């Protein structure tokens, strides 16, 4: 490993491949190695797979592993379909020079879409190799079997050829979109808990994150940005910075400002020493009235997202009507490692080592910023800290590209904590209004809902209009948001005869807005499931049974029953009658969602303790039923389900970006706290496997049921409805005060 790295470092400055001497190029792909460019045409089989003469398989995936384990899961899919041993497969991910563009890594699609594409490529490869073997061995394809990458003639073990014997110059054919796929009943790798390939390196310091990537003579940069929101540079005085040992230069282009030094510490000190006069900023709305402001903003379009029957008419006839409004605050990705990128510009070619989830579309974004042709820009993916959507990785990538272009030397840009927490994109605010109607028997006969969501600026399904910080600072204004498909799960998932759901797309947000884990679905499901609970209470029904009564989907019922069983759900109508202990009262709540109303099913039961005096909420246990279809790696699924659950406890109870009209004041972990070990519940999970069913994503679905389950558990404990995330102690106390008269009535 060390020798490999040294060999690479010696040559990487010239941007050539640096594999350890003697080893064939496919034997070990070094992190960050810039391999010769090859076809990335999605129709070409060679874009997806290469086989070495030593039978090692290199897979070229446009989808990247964002720390979720897909490097392992995708390799399982390929090894399965190719009939080779798992450890023969190595993944190259997100390198624009060698991997096909499979769209960004997001939207819960790495396995469902990325895995399907790789699976077809692998099956096409196997079929092509069988054809070649048939010719070489003089046998009919039907008489051949494949065993660990060796093609044999049935009944004649002497007649055989390995994939490496058969590969010659490559495949030189197209992927067959209709290729026959392996039957799930024949799977021997898919469905197994193969340990993640990245974990041993990550627990020993041997893994190469983008933060750890170094080039010879690499310089270090820090970018200087205004603490005042939207302020432009008036003047810069870098005299004090120039006196710092190791200082190299200041880079200024328009309002883009950075310092470059020989060491990180010199760059940090120079960034603190430089004197910048900032102009007037753009005023942010008052935070305490942000949701009123949000509702009053111009709406670009209103969509009818779900319609059935005649909801207004049904409401008019309802025996009982219930009305409520919900909110979800502005949050941020708050990656544990501030974003980082390394770039080198030499002989007209720009290479950027980046943790972006969208390296391919960044090629175009960087072309706009640098003025270089996209073909002269290469992005090589290296993992960063978990991003959970579009965090600062893309901005840092642009920063590094721009600085490298200006200085012509290899440079590493490391964002500081404040850059990541305060200046990375934010999730947009959200407001939602509901009215529901019940008939005299407590059946839901009408559902009427309005969602104020941020407009998605979609250009060819790529974030080309996203205002990267560097682009804005260069005077290249971009229109706005890349927020994901926020309408998803606005439509409700129950069998109600009269439904009207409209989404109002707010034209402009306050902050640069991007997608944050389970974008749209988490807010929509929180509100839908909170309101469903309100209807259950109005109907004097047990909330779990009420949901089951309004579902006609066996898989939906199965996840709900799984969560109920794990939790030992006790049916009851109304608030938990148990007296609690002292100021602490306890409750349990349930929430269910089918992700996008189309894929993964998930249900959660939350158990909570509420301190009636302080308003503090503690989630003590989460029980989750989960069905994502065919599981590729069940332990990988469990890891994502646990992570989605625990991260969302933090988002639900604590997280909210803070600001004044002048500036974002969430700048670190004290001003944007997240949950700690001592705050978090245990998570119990039942994973329902569906071998042979489509494999759906697991990174996002669990998050969406957590806020609703917690809100509904707080109601069970106290009779107070929490309708605004996060459920801070102040909001809980207000809700308790509001609930008190109702409870007495």
């Amino acid at each position, binding site marked *: 490993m060390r020798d490999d790295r040294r060999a690479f470092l010696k040559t990487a400055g010239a941007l050539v491949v640096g594999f350890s001497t003697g080893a064939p190029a496919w034997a070990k792909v070094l992190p960050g190695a810039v391999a010769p460019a090859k076809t990335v045409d999605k129709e070409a089989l060679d874009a997806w797979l290469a086989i070495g003469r030593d039978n090692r398989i290199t897979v070229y995936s446009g989808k990247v592993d964002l720390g979720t384990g897909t490097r392992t899961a995708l390799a399982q899919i390929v090894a399965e379909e190719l009939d080779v041993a798992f450890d023969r497969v190595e993944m190259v991910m997100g390198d624009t020079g060698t991997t096909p563009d499979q769209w960004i890594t997001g939207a819960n699609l790495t396995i469902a879409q990325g895995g399907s594409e790789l699976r077809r490529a692998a099956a096409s490869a196997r079929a092509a190799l069988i054809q070649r073997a048939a010719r070489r061995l003089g046998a009919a394809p039907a008489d051949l079997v494949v065993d660990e990458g060796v093609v044999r003639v049935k009944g004649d073990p002497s007649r055989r050829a390995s994939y490496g014997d058969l590969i010659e110059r490559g495949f030189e054919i197209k992927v067959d979109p209709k290729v026959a796929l392996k039957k799930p009943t024949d799977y021997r790798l898919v469905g197994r808990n193969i340990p993640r390939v990245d974990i041993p390196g990550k627990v020993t310091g041997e893994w190469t994150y983008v933060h750890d990537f170094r080039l010879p003579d690499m310089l270090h940069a820090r970018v200087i940005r205004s603490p005042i929101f939207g302020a432009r540079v008036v003047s810069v005085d870098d005299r004090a910075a120039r006196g710092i040992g190791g200082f190299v230069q200041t880079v200024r282009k328009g309002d883009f400002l950075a310092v470059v030094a020989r060491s990180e510490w010199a760059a940090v000190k120079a960034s603190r020493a430089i004197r910048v006069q900032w102009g007037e900023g753009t005023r942010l709305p008052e935070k305490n009235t942000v949701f009123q402001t949000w509702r009053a903003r111009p709406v670009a379009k209103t969509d009818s997202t779900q319609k059935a029957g005649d909801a207004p008419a049904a409401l008019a006839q309802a025996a009982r009507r219930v009305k409520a409004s919900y909110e979800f605050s502005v949050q941020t990705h708050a*990656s544990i490692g501030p974003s980082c990128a390394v770039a080198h510009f030499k002989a007209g070619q720009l290479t950027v080592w980046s943790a972006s989830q969208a390296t391919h579309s960044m090629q175009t974004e960087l072309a706009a910023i640098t003025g270089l042709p996209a073909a002269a820009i290469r992005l090589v993916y290296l993992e960063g800290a978990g991003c959970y959507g579009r965090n600062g990785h893309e901005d840092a990538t642009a920063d590094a590209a721009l600085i490298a272009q200006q200085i012509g030397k290899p440079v590493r840009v490391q964002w500081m*904590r404040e850059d990541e927490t305060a200046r990375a994109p934010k999730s947009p605010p959200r407001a939602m209004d509901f009215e529901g109607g019940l008939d005299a028997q407590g059946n839901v006969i009408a559902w009427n809902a309005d969602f104020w969501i941020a407009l998605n600026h979609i250009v060819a399904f790529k974030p080309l209009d996203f205002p990267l910080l560097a682009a804005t600072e260069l005077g290249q204004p971009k229109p706005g948001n890349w927020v994901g498909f926020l309408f998803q799960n606005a439509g409700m998932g129950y069998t109600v005869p009269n439904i009207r759901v409209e989404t109002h797309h707010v034209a402009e947000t306050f902050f640069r807005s991007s997608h944050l884990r389970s974008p749209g679905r988490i807010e929509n499901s929180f509100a839908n499931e909170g309101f469903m609970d309100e209807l259950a209470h109005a109907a004097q029904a047990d909330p779990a049974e009420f949901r089951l009564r309004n579902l006609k989907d066996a898989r939906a019922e199965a996840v709900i029953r799984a969560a109920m069983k794990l939790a030992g759900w006790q049916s009851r109508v109304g608030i938990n009658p148990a007296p609690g202990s002292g100021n602490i009262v306890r409750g349990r709540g349930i929430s269910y969602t089918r992700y996008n109303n189309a894929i993964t099913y998930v249900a959660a039961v939350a158990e909570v303790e509420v301190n009636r005096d302080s308003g503090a909420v503690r989630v003590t246990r989460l029980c989750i039923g989960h069905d994502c279809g065919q599981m590729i790696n069940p332990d990988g699924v469990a890891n994502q389900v646990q992570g989605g659950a625990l991260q969302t406890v933090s988002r639900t109870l604590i997280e909210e970006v803070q600001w004044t009209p002048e500036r974002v004041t969430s700048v670190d972990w004290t001003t944007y706290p997240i949950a700690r070990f001592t705050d978090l519940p245990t998570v119990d999970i039942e994973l329902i496997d569906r071998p042979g069913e489509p494999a759906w994503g697991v990174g996002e679905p669990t998050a969406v049921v957590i806020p609703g389950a917690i809100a509904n558990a707080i109601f069970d404990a106290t009779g107070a409805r929490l309708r605004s995330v996060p459920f801070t102690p102040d909001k809980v106390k207000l809700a308790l005060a509001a609930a008190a008269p109702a409870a007495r009535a």
Partner: protein
Amino acid sequence: MARITLRVNGTTHSVEADPDTPLLYVLRDDLALNGPKFGCGLGQCGACTVHLEGNAVRSCSVPVSAVVGKKVTTLEGLGSTAKPHPLQQAFIDEQAVQCGYCINGMIMTSAALLKQNTNPSEEQIRAALAGNLCRCGTHQRITAAVRRAALAA
């Protein structure tokens, strides 16, 4: 700039650095020890944790001049993929990693804990790790890994 001699993972190194340089940058950039990570530079998150004379410290907040003559141990000093430390092995066995950026701090803090308390309860583990932040939600697996390592010892 000054020539500074420090002892890391049993080896003596001599580096050219400003005395006020945070130890983290010297470990990473001068000694190529990538285990400790930059998370906040403020001592708030724990990603940069190393051992100084056996105690867990935040290397982002310790100037390199303060460790002269003292024993520094990093994640690499515990073990390697070829020969993992029992805690590293326990993290592998429990698959207690998502993105893994915080894991250095989790392992280094737990290693210090296990020296003080060879059989910590889950509650004691959570309390010991309360100053280490994980954003991916790997907490349950991390506490399980620390328990596993304690039981294996």
